[in-house]
């Protein structure tokens, strides 16, 4: 069951990663009308359209992560400590705190991306999205590395 939830957690994280990355690119590097290349098309997506999905995906991913976190604490972390993988443990500790800060950012993130967009809040939207994107990327990469080192029931 835990393995199933871990895989689901990872899949949701992939979807979240894609959505927040697209939105961050569109918010920071908006393209003009003549966008033909792959990169230009990524820059031209409708950034506000991702907001609802990002909030829901973040909540679902975090809820699943919080649920399987207890299993990690009992079965995985102790092994990492025995392996003296201090940097890995520290990175995971940062992941849990970063994810918590991201959770607290969701109300403001949602508010500033509400339609109709307030042009005066463009920089705030871009900044909030970039911070949230950093948190999601960090959590994803650290989770991936820890799973590679010591997956459940490995």
């Amino acid at each position, binding site marked *: 069951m835990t393995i199933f939830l871990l895989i689901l957690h990872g899949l949701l994280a992939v979807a979240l990663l894609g959505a927040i990355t697209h939105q961050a690119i569109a918010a920071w590097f908006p393209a003009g009308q003549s966008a033909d290349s792959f990169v230009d098309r990524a820059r031209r997506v409708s950034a506000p359209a991702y907001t609802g999905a990002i909030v829901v995906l973040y909540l679902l991913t975090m809820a699943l992560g919080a649920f399987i976190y207890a299993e990690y604490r009992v079965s995985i*972390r102790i092994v990492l400590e025995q392996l003296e993988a201090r940097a890995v443990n520290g990175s995971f500790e940062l992941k849990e*705190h970063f994810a918590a*800060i991201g*959770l607290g950012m969701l*109300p*403001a993130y949602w508010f500033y991306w509400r339609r109709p967009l307030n042009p005066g*809040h463009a920089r705030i939207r871009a900044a*909030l999205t970039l911070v949230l994107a950093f948190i999601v990327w960090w959590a994803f990469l650290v989770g991936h590395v820890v799973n590679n080192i010591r997956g459940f029931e490995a």
Partner: protein
Amino acid sequence: MAEPSRYSAFPAAFTIAFAIAYAIAVDRNLALFTYHPAIGEWGLGVQAPMDGPAMYWYGWLATAGLTALFTGLAACLVPHRAPRFLNHWVWVVPVGALLFFAWLLRGFFFR
């Protein structure tokens, strides 16, 4: 553009208060409750480990969430100036919190 409502201050106030309260809750270990994963038991407040590790993360989230909720509601009582002031800090404070945790956990990376 719609006029800001009296609740416009809530989201930014919540985010700022949550980041600060969470950082303080972790630093001072002010968990609203403790979870003992090895035996599957919950307890109010900060409890010592029992038959395995004790998890305070859920309790820290609850502490920060409640603090942020009340702060956000309080910010709604000052509707005119609060949103503009909070706009300047709404992303700066969370970034500060991230940096704080990087500093707090530096021992894992540097001996």
